[in-house]
């Protein structure tokens, strides 16, 4: 739709609240003034509208910047969107500069090829892959576009031919590369290095595996030896694969061997009767179940059961008063421990396998038992550990308390993590079975929470 001069005058009259005649005269005066100015070669500026000037004998209009923005308000601020990054060095110089000259008649141009090398208002063209199709469109549209594309194609072809020739020479030197599935003709093109970087890395590995001396050989060398060299390279690659697999298998076996060895050592140490392990209340239960699972374990020989970390250092002899002085220094003890001592009433065990306790009897029948005095001659026995304490004074106190209840009480010390553990044991038994049997007659507190420990004492002469 075109707004004619009469309609324009009507609208201006409505805005200016003037008659159409008056507005028409003012408008004609404006046009006359403008024509006079431009005819003199001067520019005529209408504020807010733009500038008129004569260029090459033609009246040219340059819109005001603000008006241009207002008209382009829908797309104002939009910038170019980069679809593909540059793959070559250089400035952003268009292959075909866009024609700035406006030849349209005000409508959307029918043939947009005249000013746009690639147009996308066509719904059939939706992505960049259609760029190639523009080469065919250029034949019918812009001849300059077509010529530039041809130049580009020629350049590409020239590069391809050059690369082919280079590749021919290289293949004579590196026949293996010819058989590579990933090998590309343009692998040596510096501009395409990024694209074929992976292949080049692979080639680099091949170069490392194969001595480069044959590669430097004369390219004119006959082909049979080169094929032989290719086979050698293939074997080397296979050998590398096999050797790598063997190395992996050997490594896995080694890991299994080490793990098994560690497991055996741990198991062996765990079965040691005199292992110095910190045993609290929970650990005591575990040890109890363990000892129950192996009730028939026989008493090992004294030579194989040397207790390095533990030793009888309290109440070594019956009637000894070493601990009496310690009793005067009553240490702080928790309420639970106090309750434990109160509830540990002395009960005579009916299951004591040995003779009743007597003083310092040299009879073998007095070597073992739950009650009575500790036999100093029995340096290798099993005992029922009912306390594992870190406080020496507290351990002494517990021992004295139990001794007062006519128990054979042994106090051993073990070192664990730079800390001494004091274990209070009841009775002297020949084997774990007799110890477990005796433990059944202990008060419920000890019966349910104890473990059997093998004790090997150093003789008094040592």
């Amino acid at each position, binding site marked *: *739709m*075109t*707004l004619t001069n009469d309609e*324009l005058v009507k*609208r*201006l009259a409505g*805005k*200016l609240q003037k008659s159409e005649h008056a*507005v028409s005269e*003012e408008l004609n005066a*404006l*046009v006359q003034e403008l*024509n006079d100015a431009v005819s003199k070669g001067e520019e005529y500026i*209408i*504020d*807010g*509208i733009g500038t008129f000037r*004569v260029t090459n*004998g*033609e*009246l*040219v*209009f340059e*819109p005001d910047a603000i*008006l*241009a923005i*207002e*008209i*382009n*308000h829908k*797309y104002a601020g939009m910038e*170019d*969107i*980069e*679809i*593909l*990054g*540059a*793959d*070559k*060095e*250089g*400035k*952003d*110089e*268009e*292959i075909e500069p*866009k024609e700035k000259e406006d030849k*349209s008649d*005000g*409508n*959307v141009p029918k043939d947009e090829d005249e*000013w*746009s*090398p*690639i147009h*996308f*208002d066509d719904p059939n063209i939706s992505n*960049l892959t259609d*760029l190639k199709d523009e080469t065919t469109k250029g034949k019918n549209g812009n001849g300059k576009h077509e010529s530039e594309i041809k130049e580009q194609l020629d350049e590409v072809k020239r590069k391809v031919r050059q690369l082919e020739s280079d590749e021919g020479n290289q293949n004579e030197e590196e026949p293996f590369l010819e058989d590579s599935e990933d090998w590309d003709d343009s692998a040596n093109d510096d501009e395409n290095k990024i694209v074929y970087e992976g292949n080049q890395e692979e080639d680099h590995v091949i170069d490392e595996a194969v001595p480069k001396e044959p590669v430097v050989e004369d390219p004119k060398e006959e082909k049979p030896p080169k094929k032989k060299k290719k086979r050698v390279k293939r074997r080397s690659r296979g050998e590398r694969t096999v050797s790598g697999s063997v190395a992996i298998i050997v490594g896995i076996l080694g890991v299994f061997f080490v793990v098994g060895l560690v497991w055996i050592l741990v198991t062996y140490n765990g079965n040691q009767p005199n292992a110095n392990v910190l045993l609290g209340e929970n650990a005591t239960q575990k040890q109890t179940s363990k000892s129950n699972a192996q009730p028939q374990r026989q008493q090992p020989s004294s030579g194989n059961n040397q207790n390095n970390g533990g030793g009888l250092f309290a109440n070594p002899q019956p009637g000894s008063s070493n601990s009496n002085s310690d009793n005067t220094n009553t240490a702080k003890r928790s309420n639970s421990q106090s309750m434990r001592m109160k509830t540990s009433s002395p009960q005579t065990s009916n299951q004591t396998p040995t003779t009743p306790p007597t003083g310092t009897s040299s009879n073998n029948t007095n070597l073992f038992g739950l009650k009575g005095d500790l036999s100093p001659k029995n340096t290798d026995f099993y005992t029922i550990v009912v306390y594992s304490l870190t406080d020496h004074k507290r351990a002494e106190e517990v021992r004295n308390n139990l001794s007062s209840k006519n128990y054979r009480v042994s106090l051993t010390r073990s070192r664990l993590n730079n800390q001494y553990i004091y274990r209070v044991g009841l009775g002297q038994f020949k084997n774990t079975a007799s110890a477990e049997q005796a433990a059944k007659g202990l008060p419920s507190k000890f019966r349910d929470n104890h473990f059997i420990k093998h004790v090997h004492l150093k003789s008094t002469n040592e």
Partner: protein
Amino acid sequence: MSKKLENALLEVIRDQINQKNKVRIDGLGTFHPHHEPRYHVQYKNGKVVLRPPKDSITFTPENNKA
């Protein structure tokens, strides 16, 4: 020419161009809208960009003479 006439003329031309209408002034020429659709531009360095569309105003003189 009065300033009021300039402002009124600007408003009319701007509104008509935004409505995709042409504005003809006798003895001067015709103002008309121009729509430049989006298009791709390929640079020599391989870079391809998408230019946004653009609306603008153009002018065609009446007699092609000053």
